[in-house]
């Protein structure tokens, strides 16, 4: 199922941002690895290693979320991959990583709660929540217990921007924007 491209809207409102890359389509592991290498190659030309690693880390967690949890799935080789959008932008403050994909209403609920929770915690509280969540024993595929989400919040400048757009009665477009400060 197709839904309107939101890349256009993102570009229009981010006039002071320069696009490093933008992808719309099926997010495979190979794609994530390649875009990750693009980040390492390109950013290391003009920024320090610590910031490159931070942008890389936030990007990987965000991209994995789209691959694993986008409600719009494509199947090949007995594996499923989610469809969505991944955009990396640079502005005078730092780097913005934007992802968007389709979600169901129960995913919307989970993501709203999670983002509300992490956006109301300070660094120390986020650290405690991360460590506590990681110590939970079950390695359920079941949504990684939101560990990645907490990691994104910890490594990026808060708050995370989370938006939902109604697609119809059942589905929403979820959009996440994380900022990594520094130049």
């Amino acid at each position, binding site marked *: 199922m197709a839904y309107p491209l939101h890349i256009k809207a993102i570009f229009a409102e981010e006039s002071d941002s320069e696009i490093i890359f933008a992808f719309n389509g099926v997010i495979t*592991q190979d794609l994530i690895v390649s875009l990750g290498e693009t980040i390492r190659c390109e950013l290391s030309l003009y920024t320090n290693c610590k910031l490159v690693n931070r942008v890389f880390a936030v990007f990987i967690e965000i991209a994995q979320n789209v691959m694993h949890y986008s409600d719009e799935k494509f199947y090949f080789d007995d594996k499923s991959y989610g469809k969505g959008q991944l955009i990396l932008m640079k502005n005078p403050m730092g780097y913005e990583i934007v992802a968007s994909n389709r979600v169901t209403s129960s995913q919307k609920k989970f993501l709203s709660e999670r983002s509300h929770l992490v956006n109301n915690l300070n660094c120390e509280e986020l650290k405690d929540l991360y460590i506590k969540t990681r110590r939970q024993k079950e390695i359920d595929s079941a949504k990684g217990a939101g560990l990645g989400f907490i*990691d994104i919040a910890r490594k990026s400048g808060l708050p995370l921007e989370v938006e939902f757009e109604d697609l119809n009665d059942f589905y929403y477009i979820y959009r996440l924007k994380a900022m990594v400060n520094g130049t």
Partner: protein
Amino acid sequence: MKSLTIESTRCTPEILFDPGKGIYSISGSSYPENSFEFYKPIIEWVDSFVKNNQNEVELNVQMKYFDSTSSKFLIMIFEKFEIFHRKGNQVIINWLYDEEDLDDLENAEELFIGIKVPYRFIRK
């Protein structure tokens, strides 16, 4: 015991566990497509090693990057070596870190919270 060798890929680390040669090493990047699938044989190997062997172990860990899910599995591996240590074997985990990136060191320090195994951080 048979050694375990897994070659690295762009998103999975190299694993060398060779009791015959006394080599225990994990190095590279870790953000597998399916972490459970990747780490399952490694956890099983370490589990069997810990139960059936007596040895000195020096585990070298040198990670370029590990995602949040991989960190869970690294902790599981360290916890296995904690048991091994508790059984009276000499164990040390060497975590090699990049001095240019102290985030890396901070991430590593958090992995050892609550784990009672000797470890040290070594600047590359």
